[in-house]
């Protein structure tokens, strides 16, 4: 299980990696040459795949329901 803040952080890391890969591919597409083609295919595309994997791994984890706190700590709230 994963807590919500950790899920958000993982998604943001995935998004940042994907955005870096897309930005790199965009720059390479705008200044296309043999070198930028290799950079795009060898770095940009793998970055997108890695970002998508990070997101996928985080998103498939289960988030536990929020804990309901009892007003009186000595009396468990789930006993009638």
């Amino acid at each position, binding site marked *: 299980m994963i807590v*919500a803040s950790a*899920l*958000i952080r993982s*998604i*943001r890391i*995935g*998004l*940042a990696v*994907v*955005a870096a*890969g*897309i*930005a790199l*591919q*965009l720059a390479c*597409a*705008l200044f*296309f*040459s*043999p*070198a930028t*083609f*290799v950079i*795009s*295919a060898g770095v*940009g*595309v793998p970055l*997108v*795949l890695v*970002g*998508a994997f990070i*997101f*996928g791994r985080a*998103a498939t984890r289960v*988030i536990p329901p929020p804990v309901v706190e009892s007003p009186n700590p000595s009396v468990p709230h789930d006993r009638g």
Partner: protein
Amino acid sequence: MLDLILVCGLILCLALAVLAWIWVPRFALSHSGRWLVLISVAILPVGISAAGLTVQLRTSSQTTFCLSCHPMQEYGRTLFVDNRKALAAVHYQERSIERDKTCFACHTDYAMFGNMKAKLNGLRHVWVQYVGKVPEKLALYQPYPNHNCLHCHEDARGYVENPVHKPFFAELSANTRSCLQCHNVAHDKKAAADGHFWQAGGGQ
């Protein structure tokens, strides 16, 4: 046109990724929000990247791409020389090959993984161009295989009916005799250096 679509798609993906990054806390914890993030993080960027890679692989087979490296430019000029025995020139000028794929048409293996092998060799070219040292005399990695010629010529009338070819059909098919033993001028670099070029309409 495909390049423009690709650039627009990449810009859209980038914008979606940035928006999703900002709004993650709102979306990530709901079911529909997660779908939205899944589309912006995984499905769309991976799809656009795959499409972009396909477009760029196709572009990397084009003549202009090959000739964008300086050492290849003198080979590019040999396409225009006035020499009917120079293979590159005659194929180009007779329009026997697609002009957009002039280099690739002859310098790829017409076999399984032939394209991949050509691309890997191209990777070595890029490395040499930008990082290594370009050798003074360029050479093929292996002797030129006949099946690259026969891929187009094997059932061509000019090849089949030519009496000079007939005694050597078996040897040529078995690659034990090279086509280049007789057709031994692939690129006429001397004529290109001397400026002996053919011009369409020049003889009229």
